[in-house]
């Protein structure tokens, strides 16, 4: 069976939904589109979602992924939810810094600290 890409895994920890990207590279437009559909389906499950996106496996991404994160973030905050990013490699963190997206995303070193920062945790 052909592997399903882009792969994500979802885990529920307390009141938080932790979504981990499985792929090392997130690049292709089709992958990003599918990823957006997966993420939006999680976000649209309910109001006040506490979502943590775990980048531990991601070593490379394009600016299209940054666009996807902005769309997801807007959707979450429209629904009174919270979004945290974590486990971002130093190279990818540099991309966030260059684009000043460190100003709009809350980025934590690991899943635990990201969850602790969420309201009610």
């Amino acid at each position: 069976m052909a592997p399903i890409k882009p792969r994500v895994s979802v885990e529920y920890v307390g009141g938080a939904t932790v979504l981990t990207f499985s792929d090392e590279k997130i690049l292709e437009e089709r992958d990003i589109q599918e990823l957006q559909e997966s993420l939006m389906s999680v976000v649209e499950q309910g109001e006040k979602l506490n979502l943590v996106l775990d980048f531990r496996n991601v070593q490379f991404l394009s600016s299209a992924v940054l666009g996807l994160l902005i769309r997801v973030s807007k959707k979450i905050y429209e629904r009174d939810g919270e979004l945290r990013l974590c486990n971002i490699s130093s190279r990818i963190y540099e991309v966030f810094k260059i684009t000043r997206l460190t100003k709009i995303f809350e980025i934590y070193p690991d899943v635990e600290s990201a969850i602790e920062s969420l309201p009610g945790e």
Partner: protein
Amino acid sequence: MPVSRSVVISSTPLAIVEVCKQVLVNLEAQDFSEEDFFAVHLALEEAFINAVKHGNKMEPTKAVKIDYSVGADRIEICMTDEGEGFDPEVVPDPRYGDNLFKPAGRGLLLIRSYMDVVEYNKQGNSIRMVRFKEKEKEKENTSKSAAKIKA
């Protein structure tokens, strides 16, 4: 020995994958660093997306021409699309104001951040990008620092 190649690919997202692989193999052969791989890979991807989306308007029959040369101390890439071209000076800065919250418009900023030389032809449909080897830059910085200390 520097390696120079010229390829013409279709305006489909997957077409750049093989070119990236070839470029990265050549960088490795010339002892470029992981930082260089990341930078060049990102610049290639972003330039190609711009060429396909904004230049060739997603028409798969239109071509993108890529010329690159990898030498001992630098990589130079020229990418040309079949579009009308644009003025890179009027592209809004995605880091400020409402642009910060827009999902698109960061490609050129990233290219400029990761490549040492970025310039367009007059028509605006061809980008030339150069990156100097990270290790060579370190050597240069070290010798500049040493010169300052001596002075």
